[in-house]
């Protein structure tokens, strides 16, 4: 009697794939997956490490090419070093010695250390000069942001149109200012002047305030005072004013030539328009910045000062 025993087929032990099979994509090889995963992981780590140690603000691995030094991760710019070296020794950078550069760099590092220490100690709150410098630097930063974008031509033209009077030339006037002698009738003197009588013949004396020939309006204003200037400004060429009572007697203005301010054409005023436009933009930005800072700040004012 034979016994039919069903013996199971033995599973072949796992064998290592032949070396060439690793590169044959048609053969399943476990090591290939591991190898590719490892390569991928290494690549990922490399990229992450590079990003971590070279990104702005996280410079820890090496000194970036643009910097001469790092002081507690704060860069000392190479360009600033060059500027200071050349300014100090008054020779091209290439002609300075290693020790000269070293000295300047040492000074810059020292300065940076002291600045950082000063901030730690809270000097920015205590020292008047530091506070003023900080205020100015912050204002300057806003100015920089505003100035790096050139306004469009339409914006400049719009500004010019809205402020045309500002770009007018300064008015000019050539005139005489007479003082009426005591006892004389001012109205008769005016009438005589208007009819062509010489001032000498009427006994009129100059006040001496506007005898230098043609003057700008601002200068005439300064010399004549607001009241007499206002009268003079309204006179046409050759006109004689009515008598003007003044503390030192009655005055009469005789206008020789009055050249009123003339609007400067846009192309000629363009540089001034740009300057004023940017100044206004900066002022508005600074005002907006002040409002923002006040809004986000916790400001408490004593009851008696509110």
């Amino acid at each position, binding site marked *: 009697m034979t016994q039919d025993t069903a013996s199971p087929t033995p599973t072949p032990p796992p064998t290592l794939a032949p070396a060439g099979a690793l590169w044959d994509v048609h053969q399943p090889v476990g090591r290939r997956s591991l190898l590719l995963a490892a390569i991928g992981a290494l690549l990922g780590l490399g990229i992450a490490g590079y990003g971590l140690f070279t990104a702005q603000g996280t410079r820890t691995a090496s000194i970036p090419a643009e910097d001469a030094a790092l002081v507690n991760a704060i860069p000392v710019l190479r360009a600033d070093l060059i500027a200071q070296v050349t300014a100090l020794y008054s020779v091209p950078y290439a002609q300075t010695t290693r020790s000269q550069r070293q000295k300047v760099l040492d000074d810059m590092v020292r300065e940076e250390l002291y600045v950082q220490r000063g901030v730690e100690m809270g000097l920015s709150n205590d020292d008047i000069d530091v506070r003023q410098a900080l205020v100015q630097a912050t204002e300057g930063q806003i*100015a920089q942001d505003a100035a790096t974008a050139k306004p469009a031509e339409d914006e400049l033209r719009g500004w010019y149109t809205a402020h045309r009077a500002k770009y007018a030339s300064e008015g000019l006037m050539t005139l005489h200012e007479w003082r009426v002698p005591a006892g004389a009738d001012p109205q008769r003197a005016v009438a005589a002047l208007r009819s062509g009588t010489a001032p000498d013949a009427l006994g009129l004396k100059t006040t001496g305030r506007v005898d230098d020939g043609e003057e700008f309006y601002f200068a005439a204003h300064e010399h004549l005072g607001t009241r007499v200037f206002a009268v003079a400004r309204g006179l046409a060429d050759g006109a004689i004013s009515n008598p003007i009572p003044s503390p030192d007697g009655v005055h009469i203005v005789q206008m020789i030539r009055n050249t009123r301010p003339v609007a400067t054409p846009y192309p000629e005023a363009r540089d001034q328009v740009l300057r004023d436009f940017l100044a206004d933009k900066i002022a508005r930005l600074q005002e907006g910045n002040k409002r923002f800072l006040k809004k986000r700040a916790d400001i408490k004012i004593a009851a008696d000062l509110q």
Partner: protein
Amino acid sequence: MTPPPTFARAATRRRLLWIIPLFLLIAAVVTHGVRYRAIAAQVLRADPEAILGDPTLRDAAIAAGHPVYAQHCASCHGAAGKGDRTLGVPDLTDSEHLYREGTVAQIEDIARYGIRAGNKHGWNLAVMPAYASKNPDAAEPLPPQTPAQIETLARFIHAFTAGVTDPAAQQRGRDAYNKAGCWDCHGRDLGGDGAIGAPALTDDIWLYGGSIADIRRSISRGRAGMSPAFARKLTPAELRNVAVYVASLAPIQSDRK
């Protein structure tokens, strides 16, 4: 169903034919990138004045600086760097430099900190006073000039390029120039002062135009051109590259520092 071994080997070989060039391409791109970064770093580490003399650094800096110029500088200085007289923007292609000698480092300094741009490192020392106003200069007490004095000054300066026709008038002009204190910035010889951006008045290079009307207006209304500070807008590499590009627009000066 597995493909016959012969077919599989052929397919693998075909794939390898693609994979090898792909790897080579990737290697070339990476090598180029590494080399590009190395040259960019060299541009930053080099003495700025040596860059224009080194073909590799020069080409790399100019190639990188041109787009920066086009984006941030050309709107005022013009695409070709010819400037704009209506805004007092200087021509970058001539040999005249308003501030110092026009070295790469100096140009970079201006690009970084600006001129009258609100940055304390920048050039903020002087402006052209407006002599036809009550207070010609906000920073310094200067006397205003009369219309006649301004006319005398304008004709005196104009004569250096237009030619002297009246020696007596020229002498009156020189007296007025000295009396008004113009020499304080522009020098006794009218040669200007690069340390404060005061231009020479005797040559034919004009920031705002050299007609007698232009000169009269400059004296009467003053000038105060501005160049923005890009310290926080551009990276150090962009600043260096654009400085090299701008320096390359001007003719090479043998005495350049």
